[in-house]
């Protein structure tokens, strides 16, 4: 799978284009995320943020362009969702997507890194190491007391955290987080920013977000998308001062 391409980036997109029925969702998008980085991606509706995640996680095949993972070692355009997940890319959906009918513990158990094949799940035995790992994650996502609850009964914010916890359980190298604070209270939003910073200590994180206060709280490099391409990159203060960005956001 080694490719001639030389890059040190964890995630590298070059000239990626995607069209749906003539609509260009991504237009020659190029982007590089370095290992250990946390990057915020912002942009108005229809800028191509979710499509970009779909391309990286194998849900959508690009019409053209390169998508490389882990220093150019893996060409993501050739792999499907399960293979990409196994490589170490976790994805959090915009709407909290958890297994409502399972307990909080089982949600994490299903997400824990391990053999995903049919046979091994038929003859699965819980181990102490797994229980410990679940404990650790519950601690991080602040849901320790909810362990045996039905996940469907959690509050909206707790569901978002549980989903982030499930991503952690996968032990991914790269986390893609789509609008984690949509619908959260101010306190939950602040806690979520803390949580993502904690996670970023050992993992690369890409956050797509609308909420500017939250992006400011994160204090990381920001990429602005518009009509499927990058129009600005830099600190939140730099991009907010960028004329092109102001034009796009204010529609002038």
């Amino acid at each position, binding site marked *: 799978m080694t490719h001639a391409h030389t890059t040190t980036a964890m995630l590298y997109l070059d000239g990626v284009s995607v069209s749906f029925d003539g609509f260009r969702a991504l237009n020659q998008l190029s982007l590089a995320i370095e290992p250990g980085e946390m990057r915020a991606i912002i942009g108005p509706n229809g800028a191509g943020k979710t499509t970009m995640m779909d391309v990286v996680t194998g849900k959508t095949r690009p019409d053209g362009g390169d998508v490389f993972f882990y220093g150019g070692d893996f060409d993501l355009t050739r792999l499907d969702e399960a293979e990409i997940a196994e490589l170490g890319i976790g994805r959090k959906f915009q709407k909290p997507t958890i297994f409502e009918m*399972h307990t909080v513990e089982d949600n994490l158990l299903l997400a824990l890194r391990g053999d995903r094949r049919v046979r091994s799940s*038929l003859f699965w035995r819980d181990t102490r190491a797994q229980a410990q790992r679940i404990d650790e994650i519950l601690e991080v996502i602040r849901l320790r007391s909810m362990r045996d609850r039905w996940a469907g*009964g959690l509050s909206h914010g707790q569901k978002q955290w549980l989903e982030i916890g499930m991503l952690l359980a996968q032990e991914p190298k790269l986390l893609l987080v789509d609008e984690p604070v949509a619908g959260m209270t101010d306190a939950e939003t602040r806690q979520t920013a803390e949580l993502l910073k904690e996670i970023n200590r050992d993992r690369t994180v890409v956050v797509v977000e609308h909420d500017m206060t939250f992006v400011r709280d994160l204090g990381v490099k920001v990429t602005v998308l518009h009509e499927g391409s990058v129009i600005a990159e830099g600190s939140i203060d730099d991009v907010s001062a960028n004329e092109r960005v102001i034009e796009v956001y204010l529609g002038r």
Partner: protein
Amino acid sequence: MHAFADRTLGRVGTVFLASILVVAVAVPVSNLLFPPGSPLHMPSYLVALLGKYICYALLALSIDLIWGYCGILSLGHGAFFALGGYAMGMYLMRQIGTRGVYANPELPDFMVFLNWSELPVFWYGFQHFAYAAFMIVAVPGLLAFLFGWFAFRSRVTGVYLSIITQAMTFALMLGFFRNNFGFGGNNGLTDFKEILGFNVQAAGTRAALFAASCLALAVGFVICRAIITSKFGKVLIAIRDAESRTRFLGYRVESYKLFVFTVSACMAGVAGALYVPQVGIINPSEFAPANSIEAVIWVAVGGRGTLIGPIIGALVVNYAKTTFTSGMLAPYWLFLLGGLFVAVTLLLPRGIVGTIQHFWSQRRQARDGEGAVPEPSPAPAE
């Protein structure tokens, strides 16, 4: 053994399994050991009737495994049931030998009637019970595997999947109706004489077939419980409730669906095979789409995603069917069945057993004083 009962079956499951086994013994004993006229005697016609119900219950159980736990609504499960039935019918036909109307030692009557001179290749081997038993499981299993291979890999889900399962059973029905298909055309296979050397009409044989059906149901129940209590079962529920989340966690959803769909089809095949010697005939009408839909109704009435519910649903609905279709209400049975489905969907969406389970879990919560925990009810039907 105790740990197994605890972990895999649960308390209710253990009691239920024990009841099936008690019935498996009690009914034959009452039929064979008590003389007619005794209040404890069960007439043979009733044994055969109950045996038929038990086979339906196994079919319902197989549907619940995929529909209740993985969200795959098959409207063509009757096809797997019928294929198992045909495999058994072929064995029974080959046992007739020279006792047929045309007394041909090799060819079943319908082939002689069609002026065929030799046995078609796919009938070879069916004179051996072991081979037939293998085919009873293998043919439905193989069809389900091929069907699922294409359907699940192409990510056909929901209503679309239901429709193509329906088309599958319809296509098979049309095929089996044809004389040149080699399965007796519209008359199907009948006039059976012996099974394993015993007269199929004899009271002892019927009692044994009844016990075998109960045993098959018990084994099917244990297999289903083992599947759903494993991590595999948790993945199935995850697929049912959030398929793309399961995919992004790295699970190969199509492999999970394929496995459980194939297991379910094999169970349906066994149910069909036990059904045929008890009713004495198998014909293409068993492939009729309406049969498959009726089986789904049993599951809905009993409570999907409960395993015990569909078994009870199959027994209750079929008892009602027998009662209604043998009296002056017979012309109205289909209206009643349709009305029952509508009523259950609207008034009792969890089904009989699902509603009872819900009631108990509510009570337990009230007693334990836990906060608002939502009931673990299955997502609405596809």
